[in-house]
């Protein structure tokens, strides 16, 4: 399913980051091709969020390379990485509570270069509100939103910048079954738009439905990689997950 044509959108090699004596990400490497959705799996504490933090510039790697469309971004400031076309959501949702939904999304696009003309920016905000299912809520303070709507708003803000690469950290967690269906369809539609996605996710149905390929981490290391179906039946993966989150698949 994955198209290996041209430079990968994301290419990670030898990535390492330790916190004191704990090596949270250890010699991690993988590549994600244009338009692919790559699942990044692993039990809690295996280093997935740390890996995303390294890619988006929240943390500096101790070693390794991170190439975004061929350009090494390892150790670059977050705002520069964001301007190069990487956007993300956070495991613990982060919206701007003191602002309304429209301003939250505007924050996502106002600082991208070149700047959009105001009218066009406002039109894009309307489109995004509609797309994530928040149409009509544009003047509503983000602090008043329900949990799921906060997730929607955070995604809309990430999409506002028209990213080439989107990192989603357990974005589907905590959704009820019908919301999950909507969420999966939404992410699939992003793929159709040509956005490349790294999906950190515990909801196995979503992983099966969405991911072209998967990388599985355990204790900071990559323990498996390949086509989704193969990876999910891999003996080492099942063992790493045993008694863990695989149950909610």
């Amino acid at each position, binding site marked *: 399913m994955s198209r290996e044509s041209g430079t990968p959108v994301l290419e990670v090699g030898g990535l390492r980051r330790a916190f004191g004596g704990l090596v949270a990400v250890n010699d991690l490497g993988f590549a994600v091709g244009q338009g692919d959705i790559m699942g990044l799996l692993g039990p809690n504490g295996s280093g997935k969020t740390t890996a995303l933090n390294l890619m988006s510039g929240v943390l500096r790697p101790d070693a390794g390379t991170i190439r975004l469309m061929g350009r090494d971004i390892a150790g670059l400031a977050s705002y520069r990485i964001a*301007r190069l076309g990487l956007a993300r959501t956070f495991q613990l949702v982060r919206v701007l509570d003191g602002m309304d939904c429209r301003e939250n999304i505007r*924050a996502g696009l106002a600082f991208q270069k070149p700047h959009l003309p105001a009218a066009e920016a406002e039109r894009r905000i309307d489109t995004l509100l509609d797309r994530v299912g928040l149409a009509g809520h544009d003047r509503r303070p983000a602090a008043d939103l329900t949990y799921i709507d906060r997730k929607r708003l955070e995604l809309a803000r990430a999409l506002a*910048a028209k990213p080439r690469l989107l990192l989603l950290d357990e974005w589907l967690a905590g959704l009820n079954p019908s919301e999950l269906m909507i969420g999966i369809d939404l992410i699939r539609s992003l793929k159709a738009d040509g956005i490349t996605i790294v999906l950190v996710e515990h909801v196995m149905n979503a992983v099966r439905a969405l991911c072209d390929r998967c990388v599985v981490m355990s204790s900071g290391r990559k323990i498996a990689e390949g086509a989704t179906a193969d990876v999910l039946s891999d003996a080492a993966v099942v063992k790493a997950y045993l008694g863990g989150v695989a149950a909610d698949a």
Partner: protein
Amino acid sequence: MTARTAGLGALALAAFVLLAFVPRLGNAYYLALAISLLQYTVLATAWGMFSGPTRYVSLATTAFFGVGAYTVAVLGEILPWPLVLLIAAALGAILAAIVGLSTLRLSGVYFVIFTFGLTELIRQLVVWFEVNKSRVLGRYVFVDITQADIYWQLLALTAAVFLLGWLIARSRLGFALRVIGEDETVAKHCGINTTFAKVALFTISATVMTLVGAIMAPRWTYIEPSIAFNSMISFQVLIMALLGGAHRLWGPVLGAVPLTLLFELLSARFPNTFTIILGCIFLLIVYMLPRGVAGLFEKLAAAPGGKTTQRVAA
């Protein structure tokens, strides 16, 4: 909205024109009081311009004010007045940029402590320099500037600060600062160069404070470090801005005016216990009005009948 903005603009302009006639009243006491009011209004507004949106609490007001005052003490007799002001502003801006670049990566309480320490550091440096190099303990300020001149300069600076604050609030930089105040990590991921935005605003705010110090200096005929770098100013400005509400451009003035009058009264009546009273007022404000007078007004406007935060039905 635009009609309302124009109306408010016209009102503000009229107010400034009227205020320009205060020195014509010919009452020295009122003029002195008006100078104090303007001084604290500008300082508190400038403080709020940076600390309001970013929520960084700065105690460096005195440091910049003192640098401005001392620039006048040293250069006032040698150079023409506009040039002295220009140099003071430049010194304040350079100092602020250096301090900003080295400290705005600090967060919360570390920043507060650093800015407080900075004031002491600069004061001690000035003392050391004066004693060992210039061999003087204090300086006489001989410049040909009247109280009315001081008042008019402060009034012009007040107008400039409000205009600047209004322009910034409507700009991309102003929006960036609000996002930073909400969540700095998100701000960075939105592509905001947070260090630049914070240093820029800190520098603008500090330059204004330095100018206030420079303009005020001729009011004293004799300056020494303990007068120019009186850390009380930092605390008073902080209290005023918090009482008024630093999240609005027009907030700090609502705190500066009543508190300047109150402080004037208290320091005359109770010179010895003044600082204790100041501390108590500070605690009261933080407990009773966490969002300041401006927040109180907003709450009243949003009460039944008002409509500031209407909910949109889905």
